[in-house]
Protein backbone atom coordinates (compact mmCIF):
# COMPACT_ATOMS: atom_id res chain seq x y z
CA UNK A 1 0.00 0.00 0.00
CA UNK A 2 1.18 3.53 -0.74
CA UNK A 3 1.87 6.24 1.78
CA UNK A 4 0.47 9.66 2.56
CA UNK A 5 2.72 12.74 2.61
CA UNK A 6 2.87 12.77 6.41
CA UNK A 7 3.78 9.06 6.50
CA UNK A 8 6.61 9.69 4.04
CA UNK A 9 7.97 12.58 6.11
CA UNK A 10 7.82 10.53 9.32
CA UNK A 11 9.45 7.48 7.69
CA UNK A 12 12.32 9.58 6.39
CA UNK A 13 12.75 11.35 9.72
CA UNK A 14 12.64 8.27 11.96
CA UNK A 15 14.05 5.60 9.65
CA UNK A 16 11.03 3.45 10.48
CA UNK A 17 10.24 2.12 7.01
CA UNK A 18 6.66 1.10 7.73
CA UNK A 19 5.57 3.94 10.04
CA UNK A 20 1.87 4.59 9.43
CA UNK A 21 -1.05 6.63 10.68
CA UNK A 22 -1.86 5.82 14.31
CA UNK A 23 1.69 4.79 15.24
CA UNK A 24 3.38 6.67 18.06
CA UNK A 25 6.96 7.48 17.10
CA UNK A 26 9.77 9.73 18.28
CA UNK A 27 10.84 12.29 15.69
CA UNK A 28 14.08 14.23 15.41
CA UNK A 29 13.20 17.90 15.36
CA UNK A 30 14.66 20.01 12.56
CA UNK A 31 13.66 23.44 13.88
CA UNK A 32 11.63 25.02 16.66
CA UNK A 33 9.98 28.41 17.01
CA UNK A 34 9.22 30.14 20.30
CA UNK A 35 7.43 33.49 20.39
CA UNK A 36 7.48 36.28 22.93
CA UNK A 37 4.28 35.28 24.77
CA UNK A 38 5.63 31.89 25.88
CA UNK A 39 9.39 32.40 26.21
CA UNK A 40 9.15 33.10 30.00
CA UNK A 41 7.33 29.78 30.57
CA UNK A 42 9.64 27.83 28.25
CA UNK A 43 12.71 29.25 30.02
CA UNK A 44 11.30 28.37 33.45
CA UNK A 45 10.42 24.77 32.47
CA UNK A 46 13.76 24.29 30.67
CA UNK A 47 15.65 25.16 33.82
CA UNK A 48 13.29 23.21 36.10
CA UNK A 49 13.96 20.15 33.93
CA UNK A 50 17.65 20.55 34.70
CA UNK A 51 19.03 21.15 31.24
CA UNK A 52 22.34 23.00 31.01
CA UNK A 53 22.57 23.41 27.24
CA UNK A 54 20.35 23.57 24.18
CA UNK A 55 20.41 20.47 21.99
CA UNK A 56 21.35 22.68 19.05
CA UNK A 57 21.31 26.48 19.34
CA UNK A 58 21.23 26.76 15.54
CA UNK A 59 17.85 25.06 15.38
CA UNK A 60 16.06 27.34 17.81
CA UNK A 61 14.34 30.50 16.60
CA UNK A 62 13.02 33.10 19.05
CA UNK A 63 10.67 35.69 17.60
CA UNK A 64 9.10 38.73 19.25
CA UNK A 65 5.85 39.52 17.42
CA UNK A 66 2.76 39.48 19.65
CA UNK A 67 4.09 42.15 22.00
CA UNK A 68 6.09 44.34 19.57
CA UNK A 69 6.15 47.21 20.22
CA UNK A 70 4.96 46.78 23.79
CA UNK A 71 1.43 48.01 24.42
CA UNK A 72 1.09 47.09 28.10
CA UNK A 73 3.30 47.95 31.04
CA UNK A 74 4.61 44.44 31.69
CA UNK A 75 5.17 43.32 28.08
CA UNK A 76 8.85 44.21 27.97
CA UNK A 77 9.49 41.67 30.75
CA UNK A 78 9.08 39.00 28.04
CA UNK A 79 11.82 40.63 25.96
CA UNK A 80 14.19 40.84 28.95
CA UNK A 81 13.64 37.15 29.78
CA UNK A 82 14.00 36.22 26.10
CA UNK A 83 17.20 38.21 25.70
CA UNK A 84 18.69 36.69 28.85
CA UNK A 85 17.75 33.17 27.67
CA UNK A 86 19.28 33.87 24.24
CA UNK A 87 22.50 35.14 25.83
CA UNK A 88 22.82 32.34 28.38
CA UNK A 89 22.24 29.49 25.95
CA UNK A 90 23.78 30.99 22.81
CA UNK A 91 20.69 31.32 20.63
CA UNK A 92 21.72 32.30 17.11
CA UNK A 93 18.37 33.32 15.68
CA UNK A 94 16.47 36.04 17.51
CA UNK A 95 14.09 38.39 15.68
CA UNK A 96 13.09 41.37 17.74
CA UNK A 97 11.00 43.43 15.32
CA UNK A 98 11.13 41.71 11.92
CA UNK A 99 7.55 40.48 11.69
CA UNK A 100 5.18 37.66 12.56
CA UNK A 101 6.75 34.35 13.60
CA UNK A 102 4.99 32.19 10.99
CA UNK A 103 5.89 34.55 8.17
CA UNK A 104 9.54 34.72 9.24
CA UNK A 105 9.98 30.96 9.67
CA UNK A 106 9.45 30.36 5.95
CA UNK A 107 10.52 33.76 4.59
CA UNK A 108 13.89 33.71 6.39
CA UNK A 109 14.54 30.14 5.27
CA UNK A 110 14.28 28.37 8.61
CA UNK A 111 11.93 25.71 7.24
CA UNK A 112 12.55 23.44 4.25
CA UNK A 113 10.40 20.76 2.57
CA UNK A 114 10.23 17.54 4.58
CA UNK A 115 11.35 19.19 7.84
CA UNK A 116 9.76 18.42 11.19
CA UNK A 117 9.06 21.67 13.02
CA UNK A 118 7.30 22.58 16.27
CA UNK A 119 6.25 25.98 17.57
CA UNK A 120 4.59 27.36 20.68
CA UNK A 121 1.65 28.62 18.65
CA UNK A 122 -1.37 26.85 17.22
CA UNK A 123 -0.85 28.41 13.78
CA UNK A 124 2.49 26.62 13.40
CA UNK A 125 0.62 24.49 10.83
CA UNK A 126 1.55 27.28 8.38
CA UNK A 127 4.86 25.69 7.28
CA UNK A 128 2.99 22.89 5.55
CA UNK A 129 2.87 25.39 2.67
CA UNK A 130 6.40 24.25 1.75
CA UNK A 131 5.79 20.58 2.56
CA UNK A 132 7.09 20.58 6.13
CA UNK A 133 5.37 18.76 8.99
CA UNK A 134 4.79 21.52 11.52
CA UNK A 135 2.49 21.71 14.49
CA UNK A 136 1.78 23.68 17.65
CA UNK A 137 2.74 22.42 21.11
CA UNK A 138 2.66 23.66 24.71
CA UNK A 139 5.54 25.30 26.54
CA UNK A 140 6.38 22.24 28.67
CA UNK A 141 6.92 20.14 25.57
CA UNK A 142 8.92 22.92 23.94
CA UNK A 143 11.24 22.98 26.96
CA UNK A 144 11.88 19.24 26.59
CA UNK A 145 12.64 19.59 22.86
CA UNK A 146 15.14 22.35 23.62
CA UNK A 147 17.01 19.86 25.80
CA UNK A 148 16.63 16.66 23.78
CA UNK A 149 15.96 17.56 20.14
CA UNK A 150 13.26 14.92 20.01
CA UNK A 151 9.49 14.70 20.45
CA UNK A 152 6.93 11.93 20.37
CA UNK A 153 4.07 12.16 17.92
CA UNK A 154 1.13 10.06 16.89
CA UNK A 155 1.33 9.85 13.11
CA UNK A 156 -1.89 11.55 11.98
CA UNK A 157 -4.54 10.09 9.73
CA UNK A 158 -4.92 11.98 6.45
CA UNK A 159 -7.87 13.84 4.98
CA UNK A 160 -7.17 14.40 1.30
CA UNK A 161 -8.44 17.60 -0.30
CA UNK A 162 -8.31 17.79 -4.10
CA UNK A 163 -9.11 21.00 -5.91
CA UNK A 164 -9.09 21.18 -9.69
CA UNK A 165 -9.95 23.93 -12.13
CA UNK A 166 -9.68 27.70 -12.23
CA UNK A 167 -10.90 29.84 -9.35
CA UNK A 168 -13.32 32.67 -10.24
CA UNK A 169 -11.58 36.09 -10.48
CA UNK A 170 -12.92 37.36 -7.14
CA UNK A 171 -12.04 34.21 -5.19
CA UNK A 172 -8.77 33.73 -3.26
CA UNK A 173 -7.13 30.93 -1.29
CA UNK A 174 -8.74 32.48 1.81
CA UNK A 175 -12.19 31.74 0.38
CA UNK A 176 -11.01 28.19 -0.34
CA UNK A 177 -9.85 27.45 3.22
CA UNK A 178 -12.86 29.18 4.82
CA UNK A 179 -15.19 27.09 2.64
CA UNK A 180 -13.30 23.93 3.60
CA UNK A 181 -13.49 24.77 7.33
CA UNK A 182 -17.23 25.40 6.93
CA UNK A 183 -17.61 21.99 5.30
CA UNK A 184 -15.42 20.10 7.79
CA UNK A 185 -16.56 21.94 10.92
CA UNK A 186 -14.25 23.31 13.62
CA UNK A 187 -13.37 19.78 14.79
CA UNK A 188 -13.72 17.99 11.46
CA UNK A 189 -9.99 17.41 11.02
CA UNK A 190 -8.99 16.90 14.66
CA UNK A 191 -5.76 14.94 14.94
CA UNK A 192 -5.54 14.69 11.13
CA UNK A 193 -3.23 15.89 8.40
CA UNK A 194 -4.96 17.86 5.65
CA UNK A 195 -3.24 16.89 2.40
CA UNK A 196 -3.84 19.28 -0.50
CA UNK A 197 -3.49 18.46 -4.19
CA UNK A 198 -4.94 19.26 -7.60
CA UNK A 199 -4.13 21.71 -10.38
CA UNK A 200 -5.77 24.66 -8.59
CA UNK A 201 -3.29 24.18 -5.75
CA UNK A 202 -0.40 23.85 -8.22
CA UNK A 203 -1.37 27.19 -9.76
CA UNK A 204 -1.34 28.92 -6.36
CA UNK A 205 1.64 30.92 -5.13
CA UNK A 206 3.42 29.72 -1.98
CA UNK A 207 1.92 32.77 -0.23
CA UNK A 208 -1.61 31.60 -1.12
CA UNK A 209 -0.83 28.06 0.07
CA UNK A 210 0.45 29.60 3.29
CA UNK A 211 -2.98 31.13 3.94
CA UNK A 212 -4.56 27.67 3.63
CA UNK A 213 -1.98 25.88 5.80
CA UNK A 214 -2.20 28.64 8.41
CA UNK A 215 -5.92 28.04 8.95
CA UNK A 216 -5.83 24.22 8.97
CA UNK A 217 -5.85 24.36 12.78
CA UNK A 218 -9.26 26.06 12.63
CA UNK A 219 -10.67 22.69 11.54
CA UNK A 220 -8.65 21.03 14.32
CA UNK A 221 -5.92 19.70 12.02
CA UNK A 222 -2.53 18.72 13.36
CA UNK A 223 -0.87 19.82 10.12
CA UNK A 224 -1.50 20.77 6.51
CA UNK A 225 0.68 19.54 3.66
CA UNK A 226 1.40 20.70 0.13
CA UNK A 227 3.72 18.74 -2.18
CA UNK A 228 6.84 20.83 -2.90
CA UNK A 229 7.16 22.01 -6.51
CA UNK A 230 9.19 24.53 -8.52
CA UNK A 231 7.44 27.43 -6.76
CA UNK A 232 8.36 25.94 -3.38
CA UNK A 233 11.98 25.46 -4.42
CA UNK A 234 12.13 29.01 -5.69
CA UNK A 235 10.64 30.34 -2.45
CA UNK A 236 12.95 28.24 -0.25
CA UNK A 237 16.04 28.93 -2.34
CA UNK A 238 16.73 25.26 -3.02
CA UNK A 239 17.09 23.09 -6.09
CA UNK A 240 14.12 20.79 -6.57
CA UNK A 241 15.13 17.13 -6.40
CA UNK A 242 13.41 13.78 -6.03
CA UNK A 243 13.76 14.24 -2.25
CA UNK A 244 11.18 17.04 -2.41
CA UNK A 245 8.96 15.91 -5.29
CA UNK A 246 8.53 12.45 -3.76
CA UNK A 247 6.55 14.08 -0.94
CA UNK A 248 3.33 13.37 -2.79
CA UNK A 249 0.40 11.37 -1.48
CA UNK A 250 0.29 7.98 -3.23
CA UNK A 251 -2.99 7.22 -4.99
CA UNK A 252 -3.43 3.99 -3.03
CA UNK A 253 -2.46 5.46 0.36
CA UNK A 254 -5.00 5.03 3.14
CA UNK A 255 -6.97 8.22 3.86
CA UNK A 256 -9.87 8.52 6.25
CA UNK A 257 -11.70 10.99 4.03
CA UNK A 258 -11.44 12.52 0.58
CA UNK A 259 -12.94 15.82 -0.43
CA UNK A 260 -13.04 16.86 -4.08
CA UNK A 261 -13.75 20.41 -5.14
CA UNK A 262 -14.25 22.09 -8.50
CA UNK A 263 -12.48 25.47 -8.34
CA UNK A 264 -15.21 27.08 -10.44
CA UNK A 265 -17.77 26.35 -7.68
CA UNK A 266 -16.08 28.57 -5.07
CA UNK A 267 -17.55 31.99 -4.27
CA UNK A 268 -16.28 34.77 -1.98
CA UNK A 269 -17.20 33.84 1.61
CA UNK A 270 -16.84 35.16 5.14
CA UNK A 271 -16.72 33.43 8.53
CA UNK A 272 -19.45 35.07 10.60
CA UNK A 273 -19.36 35.93 14.31
CA UNK A 274 -18.19 34.12 16.30
CA UNK A 275 -17.16 30.77 14.85
CA UNK A 276 -14.63 30.18 12.11
CA UNK A 277 -16.81 27.38 10.71
CA UNK A 278 -19.90 29.63 10.43
CA UNK A 279 -19.14 30.34 6.78
CA UNK A 280 -21.56 32.17 4.46
CA UNK A 281 -21.32 33.52 0.90
CA UNK A 282 -20.52 37.26 0.99
CA UNK A 283 -23.52 37.76 -1.29
CA UNK A 284 -25.82 36.69 1.54
CA UNK A 285 -24.28 39.22 3.94
CA UNK A 286 -24.17 42.20 1.59
CA UNK A 287 -25.17 45.55 3.05
CA UNK A 288 -24.33 44.89 6.71
CA UNK A 289 -22.70 48.16 7.92
CA UNK A 290 -19.16 47.97 9.32
CA UNK A 291 -16.89 50.14 11.48
CA UNK A 292 -13.42 48.87 10.70
CA UNK A 293 -11.39 46.77 8.29
CA UNK A 294 -8.16 44.96 9.20
CA UNK A 295 -5.82 43.66 6.49
CA UNK A 296 -2.83 41.80 7.88
CA UNK A 297 -1.77 38.81 10.06
CA UNK A 298 0.09 35.57 9.37
CA UNK A 299 -2.99 34.52 7.38
CA UNK A 300 -3.18 37.40 4.91
CA UNK A 301 -0.48 40.01 5.46
CA UNK A 302 1.79 39.10 2.55
CA UNK A 303 2.73 41.17 -0.50
CA UNK A 304 0.11 39.58 -2.77
CA UNK A 305 -2.55 40.31 -0.14
CA UNK A 306 -1.57 43.97 0.12
CA UNK A 307 -1.40 44.21 -3.67
CA UNK A 308 -4.86 42.66 -3.90
CA UNK A 309 -6.20 45.29 -1.49
CA UNK A 310 -4.39 48.05 -3.40
CA UNK A 311 -5.93 46.88 -6.69
CA UNK A 312 -9.39 47.30 -5.15
CA UNK A 313 -8.58 50.60 -3.43
CA UNK A 314 -6.58 52.31 -6.20
CA UNK A 315 -8.01 55.75 -6.89
CA UNK A 316 -10.78 55.22 -4.31
CA UNK A 317 -11.30 56.39 -0.74
CA UNK A 318 -12.13 54.47 2.39
CA UNK A 319 -15.74 55.18 3.43
CA UNK A 320 -16.17 57.97 6.02
CA UNK A 321 -16.14 56.65 9.62
CA UNK A 322 -14.49 53.38 8.55
CA UNK A 323 -10.98 52.78 9.85
CA UNK A 324 -8.81 50.72 7.52
CA UNK A 325 -5.78 49.24 9.28
CA UNK A 326 -3.10 47.55 7.19
CA UNK A 327 -0.35 45.54 8.87
CA UNK A 328 2.30 43.88 6.68
CA UNK A 329 3.30 40.46 8.03
CA UNK A 330 7.03 41.21 7.98
CA UNK A 331 9.59 43.95 7.54
CA UNK A 332 10.59 42.45 4.18
CA UNK A 333 6.98 42.60 2.95
CA UNK A 334 6.72 46.17 4.29
CA UNK A 335 9.81 47.16 2.29
CA UNK A 336 8.63 45.40 -0.86
CA UNK A 337 5.18 46.98 -0.61
CA UNK A 338 6.81 50.39 -0.13
CA UNK A 339 9.11 49.83 -3.12
CA UNK A 340 6.32 48.90 -5.55
CA UNK A 341 3.99 51.72 -4.38
CA UNK A 342 1.43 49.36 -2.86
CA UNK A 343 1.68 51.19 0.46
CA UNK A 344 1.27 54.62 -1.11
CA UNK A 345 -1.87 53.48 -2.96
CA UNK A 346 -3.28 52.19 0.33
CA UNK A 347 -2.27 55.34 2.21
CA UNK A 348 -3.81 57.59 -0.44
CA UNK A 349 -7.05 55.65 -0.11
CA UNK A 350 -7.01 56.42 3.63
CA UNK A 351 -5.42 53.32 5.16
CA UNK A 352 -3.47 53.47 8.42
CA UNK A 353 -0.34 51.39 7.85
CA UNK A 354 1.24 49.92 10.96
CA UNK A 355 4.56 48.26 11.80
CA UNK A 356 4.83 44.53 10.96
CA UNK A 357 3.71 42.13 13.69
CA UNK A 358 0.67 40.33 15.08
CA UNK A 359 -0.97 43.69 15.74
CA UNK A 360 -4.73 43.72 15.94
CA UNK A 361 -5.15 40.00 15.18
CA UNK A 362 -4.48 38.98 18.76
CA UNK A 363 -6.43 41.95 20.09
CA UNK A 364 -3.63 43.61 21.98
CA UNK A 365 -2.94 46.76 20.04
CA UNK A 366 -3.72 49.00 17.09
CA UNK A 367 -7.46 49.15 16.63
CA UNK A 368 -9.23 47.44 19.53
CA UNK A 369 -13.03 47.63 19.16
CA UNK A 370 -15.91 47.88 21.59
CA UNK A 371 -19.51 46.70 22.12
CA UNK A 372 -21.69 46.84 19.02
CA UNK A 373 -18.88 47.47 16.56
CA UNK A 374 -18.29 45.33 13.52
CA UNK A 375 -14.99 44.55 11.79
CA UNK A 376 -14.12 42.75 8.57
CA UNK A 377 -10.70 41.19 9.05
CA UNK A 378 -8.32 39.01 7.06
CA UNK A 379 -6.92 37.06 10.01
CA UNK A 380 -7.76 33.56 11.20
CA UNK A 381 -9.97 33.74 14.29
CA UNK A 382 -13.23 35.50 15.05
CA UNK A 383 -13.68 34.11 18.56
CA UNK A 384 -15.57 36.12 21.17
CA UNK A 385 -13.48 38.99 22.46
CA UNK A 386 -10.54 38.40 20.12
CA UNK A 387 -10.33 42.03 18.90
CA UNK A 388 -11.85 43.86 21.83
CA UNK A 389 -14.98 43.24 23.88
CA UNK A 390 -17.07 40.04 23.50
CA UNK A 391 -19.78 42.12 21.79
CA UNK A 392 -17.55 43.02 18.83
CA UNK A 393 -18.63 41.21 15.66
CA UNK A 394 -15.74 39.86 13.60
CA UNK A 395 -16.19 38.72 9.99
CA UNK A 396 -13.21 36.90 8.47
CA UNK A 397 -12.61 37.53 4.79
CA UNK A 398 -10.10 37.66 1.95
CA UNK A 399 -8.06 40.85 1.42
CA UNK A 400 -10.09 41.55 -1.75
CA UNK A 401 -13.40 41.35 0.12
CA UNK A 402 -12.01 43.32 3.06
CA UNK A 403 -10.83 46.12 0.76
CA UNK A 404 -14.18 46.20 -1.06
CA UNK A 405 -15.94 46.58 2.31
CA UNK A 406 -13.59 49.42 3.29
CA UNK A 407 -14.69 51.40 0.23
CA UNK A 408 -18.43 50.99 0.73
CA UNK A 409 -18.52 50.89 4.53
CA UNK A 410 -20.65 47.76 4.41
CA UNK A 411 -20.21 44.11 3.55
CA UNK A 412 -19.63 43.95 -0.17
CA UNK A 413 -18.89 41.24 -2.72
CA UNK A 414 -15.48 41.96 -4.27
CA UNK A 415 -15.41 42.30 -8.05
CA UNK A 416 -11.92 41.04 -8.49
CA UNK A 417 -9.07 39.66 -6.42
CA UNK A 418 -6.42 41.80 -8.07
Amino acid at each position, binding site marked *: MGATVIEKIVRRNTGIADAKAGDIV*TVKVDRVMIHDIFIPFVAEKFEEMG*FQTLWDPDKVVLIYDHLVPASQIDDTRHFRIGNAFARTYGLKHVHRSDGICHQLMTEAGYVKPGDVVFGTDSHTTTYGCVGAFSSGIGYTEMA*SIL*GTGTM*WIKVPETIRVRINGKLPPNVTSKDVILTLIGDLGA*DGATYCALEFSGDTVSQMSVASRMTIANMAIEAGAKCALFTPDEKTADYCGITLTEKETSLVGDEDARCIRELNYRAEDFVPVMACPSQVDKVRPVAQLEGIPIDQVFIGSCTNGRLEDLQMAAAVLKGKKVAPFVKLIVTPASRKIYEEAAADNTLSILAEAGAMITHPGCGLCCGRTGGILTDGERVVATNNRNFLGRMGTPKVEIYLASPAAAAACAVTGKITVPECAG
Partner: protein
Amino acid sequence: MEQFTGKVWVLGDDIDTDIIIPTEYLALKSVQEMAPYAFSPLRPKLAGQIKPGDMIVAGKNFGCGSSREQAPEIIKALGIRCVIAKSFARIFFRNAINNGLLLIENERLKDLVQEGDSITVTVNESISYPGGREKIAPLPDNLVEIIQAGGLVRAMRIRNGLEHPKKNGQK
Protein backbone atom coordinates in the same frame (compact mmCIF):
# COMPACT_ATOMS: atom_id res chain seq x y z
CA MET B 1 2.96 -5.45 34.27
CA GLU B 2 1.45 -2.79 36.52
CA GLN B 3 -2.13 -3.57 37.50
CA PHE B 4 -4.79 -1.65 39.40
CA THR B 5 -8.48 -1.96 40.25
CA GLY B 6 -11.01 0.80 40.78
CA LYS B 7 -14.54 2.08 40.41
CA VAL B 8 -15.62 3.74 37.16
CA TRP B 9 -17.46 6.97 36.49
CA VAL B 10 -19.10 6.99 33.05
CA LEU B 11 -19.28 10.16 30.94
CA GLY B 12 -20.50 10.80 27.39
CA ASP B 13 -19.00 12.12 24.14
CA ASP B 14 -17.16 15.43 23.64
CA ILE B 15 -16.29 16.13 27.27
CA ASP B 16 -14.58 19.47 26.59
CA THR B 17 -11.96 21.32 28.60
CA ASP B 18 -14.55 23.88 29.70
CA ILE B 19 -16.54 21.05 31.30
CA ILE B 20 -13.40 19.62 32.88
CA ILE B 21 -12.54 23.02 34.33
CA PRO B 22 -14.59 26.13 33.41
CA THR B 23 -12.55 29.20 32.47
CA GLU B 24 -13.88 31.16 35.46
CA TYR B 25 -11.90 28.91 37.86
CA LEU B 26 -8.64 28.98 35.90
CA ALA B 27 -7.44 32.04 37.78
CA LEU B 28 -7.51 30.20 41.13
CA LYS B 29 -4.02 29.84 42.54
CA SER B 30 -3.57 26.09 42.41
CA VAL B 31 -4.91 22.98 40.77
CA GLN B 32 -5.99 21.78 44.24
CA GLU B 33 -8.24 24.83 44.59
CA MET B 34 -9.70 24.27 41.12
CA ALA B 35 -10.34 20.56 41.60
CA PRO B 36 -13.72 20.85 43.43
CA TYR B 37 -15.14 22.58 40.33
CA ALA B 38 -14.06 19.86 37.91
CA PHE B 39 -16.90 18.71 35.64
CA SER B 40 -19.22 21.23 37.38
CA PRO B 41 -21.09 22.40 34.24
CA LEU B 42 -22.08 18.79 33.56
CA ARG B 43 -22.22 17.15 37.01
CA PRO B 44 -21.65 19.60 39.88
CA LYS B 45 -21.40 16.85 42.52
CA LEU B 46 -18.99 14.61 40.64
CA ALA B 47 -15.71 16.14 41.86
CA GLY B 48 -16.78 15.56 45.48
CA GLN B 49 -17.77 11.96 44.78
CA ILE B 50 -14.57 10.85 43.03
CA LYS B 51 -12.22 8.88 45.28
CA PRO B 52 -8.50 8.34 44.67
CA GLY B 53 -8.02 5.29 42.49
CA ASP B 54 -11.30 5.74 40.58
CA MET B 55 -11.31 5.77 36.79
CA ILE B 56 -13.27 7.66 34.14
CA VAL B 57 -14.78 5.85 31.16
CA ALA B 58 -16.02 8.15 28.40
CA GLY B 59 -17.11 8.41 24.77
CA LYS B 60 -15.38 10.06 21.85
CA ASN B 61 -13.30 13.25 21.67
CA PHE B 62 -12.59 13.48 25.41
CA GLY B 63 -10.76 16.72 26.28
CA CYS B 64 -11.66 18.70 23.18
CA GLY B 65 -11.39 22.50 23.29
CA SER B 66 -8.63 24.68 24.64
CA SER B 67 -4.99 23.85 25.29
CA ARG B 68 -5.22 24.47 29.07
CA GLU B 69 -2.78 22.13 30.78
CA GLN B 70 -4.90 22.38 33.93
CA ALA B 71 -7.51 19.97 32.49
CA PRO B 72 -5.43 16.79 32.88
CA GLU B 73 -3.75 18.19 36.00
CA ILE B 74 -7.11 18.51 37.75
CA ILE B 75 -8.25 15.03 36.77
CA LYS B 76 -5.00 13.76 38.21
CA ALA B 77 -5.40 15.90 41.34
CA LEU B 78 -8.82 14.30 41.97
CA GLY B 79 -7.00 10.98 42.17
CA ILE B 80 -8.32 9.56 38.90
CA ARG B 81 -6.02 6.63 38.04
CA CYS B 82 -6.72 6.69 34.32
CA VAL B 83 -9.20 7.84 31.69
CA ILE B 84 -10.49 5.27 29.21
CA ALA B 85 -12.28 6.86 26.26
CA LYS B 86 -13.31 6.01 22.70
CA SER B 87 -10.97 8.80 21.56
CA PHE B 88 -9.13 11.83 22.91
CA ALA B 89 -8.67 15.34 21.52
CA ARG B 90 -5.11 15.89 20.35
CA ILE B 91 -3.81 18.62 22.67
CA PHE B 92 -5.49 17.04 25.71
CA PHE B 93 -3.86 13.72 24.88
CA ARG B 94 -0.41 15.33 24.81
CA ASN B 95 -1.02 17.41 27.93
CA ALA B 96 -2.27 14.35 29.84
CA ILE B 97 0.75 12.23 29.02
CA ASN B 98 3.07 15.13 29.80
CA ASN B 99 1.37 15.64 33.16
CA GLY B 100 1.56 11.96 34.02
CA LEU B 101 -2.11 11.03 33.55
CA LEU B 102 -2.63 7.61 31.96
CA LEU B 103 -5.03 7.56 29.01
CA ILE B 104 -6.33 4.43 27.30
CA GLU B 105 -8.13 4.49 23.98
CA ASN B 106 -10.81 1.84 23.71
CA GLU B 107 -13.79 1.92 21.38
CA ARG B 108 -15.97 -0.56 23.27
CA LEU B 109 -15.61 -0.28 27.02
CA LYS B 110 -17.92 2.73 27.36
CA ASP B 111 -20.82 0.58 26.13
CA LEU B 112 -19.85 -2.47 28.21
CA VAL B 113 -19.69 -1.00 31.72
CA GLN B 114 -22.03 0.89 34.01
CA GLU B 115 -21.17 3.61 36.48
CA GLY B 116 -20.02 2.10 39.74
CA ASP B 117 -18.65 -1.08 38.16
CA SER B 118 -15.25 -2.18 39.35
CA ILE B 119 -12.66 -2.76 36.62
CA THR B 120 -9.05 -3.92 36.62
CA VAL B 121 -6.52 -2.40 34.25
CA THR B 122 -3.34 -4.23 33.38
CA VAL B 123 -1.24 -1.50 31.78
CA ASN B 124 -0.54 -2.10 28.11
CA GLU B 125 -2.42 -5.42 28.17
CA SER B 126 -6.09 -5.52 29.09
CA ILE B 127 -9.06 -4.26 31.05
CA SER B 128 -11.22 -6.72 33.02
CA TYR B 129 -14.79 -5.59 33.66
CA PRO B 130 -17.77 -7.43 35.26
CA GLY B 131 -18.86 -8.91 31.92
CA GLY B 132 -15.51 -9.82 30.40
CA ARG B 133 -12.15 -8.61 29.26
CA GLU B 134 -10.95 -6.10 26.64
CA LYS B 135 -7.48 -6.09 25.16
CA ILE B 136 -5.80 -2.69 24.95
CA ALA B 137 -3.19 -1.39 22.56
CA PRO B 138 0.17 -0.89 24.27
CA LEU B 139 1.60 2.59 24.66
CA PRO B 140 5.21 2.90 23.50
CA ASP B 141 7.89 2.65 26.18
CA ASN B 142 8.82 6.33 26.03
CA LEU B 143 5.26 7.44 26.83
CA VAL B 144 4.98 4.89 29.64
CA GLU B 145 8.25 6.27 31.03
CA ILE B 146 6.84 9.82 31.04
CA ILE B 147 3.63 8.69 32.76
CA GLN B 148 5.47 6.57 35.33
CA ALA B 149 7.83 9.43 36.11
CA GLY B 150 4.77 11.54 36.93
CA GLY B 151 5.01 13.79 33.89
CA LEU B 152 7.42 15.32 31.42
CA VAL B 153 9.15 17.77 33.77
CA ARG B 154 10.05 15.00 36.22
CA ALA B 155 10.98 12.61 33.39
CA MET B 156 13.46 15.20 32.16
CA ARG B 157 14.79 15.78 35.69
CA ILE B 158 15.36 12.03 35.99
CA ARG B 159 17.04 12.02 32.59
CA ASN B 160 19.30 14.83 33.72
CA GLY B 161 20.18 13.08 37.00
CA LEU B 162 18.42 15.57 39.27
CA GLU B 163 15.95 13.02 40.62
CA HIS B 164 15.90 9.29 41.12
CA PRO B 165 13.25 7.26 39.28
CA LYS B 166 12.03 5.44 42.37
CA LYS B 167 11.29 8.47 44.49
CA ASN B 168 7.53 8.99 44.90
CA GLY B 169 7.20 5.22 45.32
CA GLN B 170 6.72 4.73 41.59
CA LYS B 171 8.43 2.10 39.53
